């Protein structure tokens, strides 16, 4: 609405222009200096994420040092992170199963650069398929000397066995545990 109004105003002015003989000096659009102005800004947004029933049960399990997966009898798949529905059979997952606390690295990396808001490097992360589970779950791999990246990576190849290590007082968060190489 306001745009249409402005337009008609401009038109009205343009029409009245020939009547007034006042000369206004005009500048070509490009004939102005470029002053390289930058305005700083920031976003701050707060959230409260509802966890839901399925994830809520998983996080309750962590408090007891249990990693709980959901299982679909039809496809035979057990999921971590737990899913309400099987992504293979499209049936509802029908039971909770406890995952093994050892597993196999599927992929890994060592991070050497500092990213804003992320941990201080170096650190290692890996997708690990825990025993009895069909899918891999990402977490930190701790307890390794990462000063020589390639030497450390040679110990984290896909197929490498790891074990789960819980922290002293689990709080029901995914950060309650991490992986360590099994030896």
């Amino acid at each position, binding site marked *: 609405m306001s745009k249409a109004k402005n337009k008609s105003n401009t038109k009205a002015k343009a029409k009245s222009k020939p009547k007034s003989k006042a000369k206004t000096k005009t500048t070509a659009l490009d004939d102005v200096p470029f002053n390289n102005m930058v305005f700083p800004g920031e976003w701050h947004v707060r959230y409260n994420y509802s966890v839901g029933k399925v994830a809520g049960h998983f996080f309750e399990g962590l408090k007891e040092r249990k990693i709980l997966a959901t299982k679909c009898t039809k496809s035979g798949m057990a999921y971590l*992170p737990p899913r309400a529905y099987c992504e293979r059979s499209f049936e509802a997952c029908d039971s909770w199963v406890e995952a093994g606390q050892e597993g196999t690295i599927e*992929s890994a990396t060592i991070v050497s650069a500092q*990213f804003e808001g992320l941990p201080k490097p170096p650190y290692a992360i890996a997708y690990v398929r825990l025993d009895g589970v*069909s*899918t891999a779950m990402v977490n930190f791999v701790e307890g390794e000397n990462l000063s020589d990246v390639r030497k450390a990576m040679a110990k984290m*190849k896909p197929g490498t066995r790891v074990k789960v290590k819980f922290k002293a007082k689990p709080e029901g968060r995914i950060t309650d545990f991490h992986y360590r190489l099994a030896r």
Partner: protein
Amino acid sequence: MAKQAVAVVGTGQTKFRSHHADKTYIELAQDAAKMALDDAGMVPDEIDAVVFSMSPTHFMGINDVDRYAIEHVWGAGKPFMRVHTGGATGGSAIQAGYFHIASGVYDTVLVVGADRVAETPDSQHVLNLIWDRFYEHDFALNTVTMTAMAAQRYMHKYGTTEEQFAKVVVRGRKNAMKNPTAHLKGDITVEDVLNSPEVSYPFKRFDICPRSSGGAAVVLTNLDVAKRKCNRPAFMTGVSSITHSIFMGDRQGYWSDTEFADQDAYNRAGHECYRQAGIVDPVRDVDVLELYDPFSTFQFPALESLGFCGRGAATAINEDGGWELDGGIVAVNPSGGTLCTNPIGVTGLVRAADAAKQIMGRAGEMQVKNAKRAIATAIGGSTQFFTVTALSDDHVS
């Protein structure tokens, strides 16, 4: 099947660099729209609908920026939609434009967008926000670390070395020297790549694309208009896409029905695209590829999954010059690809525009001789969205 043939009849790209301090975001999108319309020999009134190509807007810092851009890309008074599939956005946007026309609903569509990824100091901080808050967000996932893990898995499977990946960067930067809009370009060596600062194994800084700012646009139209407006349109003869779950751990290991390391979705998406486009043997039938390769490790699995060679063979073929512009199996990324230029919201559109320019004979110094069929790809999200688009000099497949 398409009710109408669809062709690219105009493309526009601004120069890509870290910052365009002389323009606002919407002015960049407008520049690209104007260039594409000029290239098509059209005015805004000839556009029936606009598809806006834009991924996360946190980089440039105005929420859902498509609405800010509407007037500047001449979308006011027309049907307008934004498409967002992360890094695949431009690939999905041009396919949305295709569906607009192929369905017979619209005749001529402008697909346009812009990005300025370096407006915020650390784009990976933003990219970390795409993962869920419950299970994955806390573990430093971002587009660098997720693809580093896919690369490590690929290296373990096929034995490709960091040095062999570095050669992809050297080739890309060399090709980009002929691309007037590329962000990074120049003669660099394998040692330069290997000696660049460590980021996330196996990536050093030069293995990773830049954070680019700039705009891109294409004008799509039907067969009748294309015949009138363009002496050599680039017909969109195949469009396909495959999408995955957010959880990358579902794509790894014995139970998985796809393979994280192999960019396996390209296999299915490629076959579907080839079927539509009448491509029987991609090696024989495709002249140019514009692959989405923001990391040095992307080309090899993509080439394999898209059927240009067997699994694990792309590395050795690269050593023999098989992906060079002249005399290879197929000309890969004459533009220098995503490794040299990554304005995320329009990267997939740039791939398609660069592929279309090859077919239209408007690729300038990048022009591959006798380019009749090209494929453009894009990938986005938590390695989730894969798009494959075929462009051809002939609408009869």
